[in-house]
């Protein structure tokens, strides 16, 4: 493939001196963005911590409505997708172009399974009236105030779900470029940066799962 030899110059923007400089700049930009994402979710986590410490019984009672098994399966699916993503980056770095495509496809499938399970969970909550704030209409509660838990549940998992959707879109974009043969050991920054984003989405779920599903 002659593309590997030329790609270095092909994708180098005029305002960078070397491909390394371009890759480093991209990486720093991505990490800065990821920090804003951490702080975005951080606000929700802090709100959750404060409200839970004020109303522990309501939160404990409300979390029994969540299916621990589905949460566990989703965690496994997302961790696996993180692995396939890092393998896609690794394959791009080592010039294994077919494997990049396979691993990116596997990551997309895992993301689809995650969202599918999330849909099952959401529709179950909708049917039982376990909804946020004033939409909460579940009957027969012994502990009041459970709507608060579901406000946080839907806000946090919803925002996370939107991030999964966004992640799927950019993985699909990178997949298209991989199929076109853009990436090689000298240029794989897009795969690398999409990977970083995907791992952050995974990282947030790593905290969401025990906080929402495994309260004691």
């Amino acid at each position: 493939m002659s593309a590997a030899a030329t790609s270095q110059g092909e994708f180098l923007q005029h305002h960078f001196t070397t491909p390394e400089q371009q890759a480093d700049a991209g990486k720093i930009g991505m990490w800065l963005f990821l920090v804003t994402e951490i702080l975005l979710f951080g606000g929700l986590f802090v709100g959750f911590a404060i409200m839970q410490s004020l109303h522990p019984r309501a939160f404990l009672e409300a979390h029994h409505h969540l299916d621990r098994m589905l949460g566990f399966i989703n965690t496994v699916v997302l961790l696996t997708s993180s692995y396939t993503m890092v393998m896609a980056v690794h394959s791009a770095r080592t010039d294994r172009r077919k494997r990049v495509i396979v691993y990116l496809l596997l990551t997309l499938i895992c993301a689809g399974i995650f969202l599918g399970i999330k849909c099952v969970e959401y529709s179950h909550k909708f049917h039982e009236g376990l909804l946020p704030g004033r939409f909460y209409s579940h009957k027969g509660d012994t502990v009041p105030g459970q709507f608060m838990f579901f406000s946080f549940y839907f806000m946090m998992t919803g925002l996370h779900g939107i991030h999964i959707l966004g992640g799927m879109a950019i993985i699909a974009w990178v997949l298209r470029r991989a199929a076109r043969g853009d990436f090689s050991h000298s240029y794989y920054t897009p795969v690398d940066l999409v990977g970083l984003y995907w791992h952050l989405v995974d990282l947030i779920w790593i905290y969401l799962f025990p906080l929402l599903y495994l309260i004691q």
Partner: protein
Amino acid sequence: MDAHATAASSYAKVLGALLALTVITVLAAGFSFGSWNVIIALGIASIKASLVALFFMHLRHDKPMSAVIFVTGAAVLGVFLMICTLDSNARGDDPVRPATRDSGALAISVPSSPSTPGTPAPGQSRLPGTPTKPR
């Protein structure tokens, strides 16, 4: 090429560790350790997050700038969480929520709280952001 093979196998090992820790955290949630439960759960989550950051996000072998940015962000979040917790713990006398800290129940929706004037009827809530009209 040998270095690449070891990198790929280390990713598989990290995935194995992450899955094992997930099983452990679910099993640990089945036991009651009192207030230690949340510490154990968040501790395991932090180990998992560190594994993802160090290996999957390449912080271990990356240039230090990425780690500096990440750790700074995490530290700011820590300060944010700490100060907010201190603040909310220091507020002992919330008129809307009298002495319910330990029971955990929402006094505002408990019918028998005559000490609070204008307590809404059961099923209503006076929390910020929720309407006070009956459903």
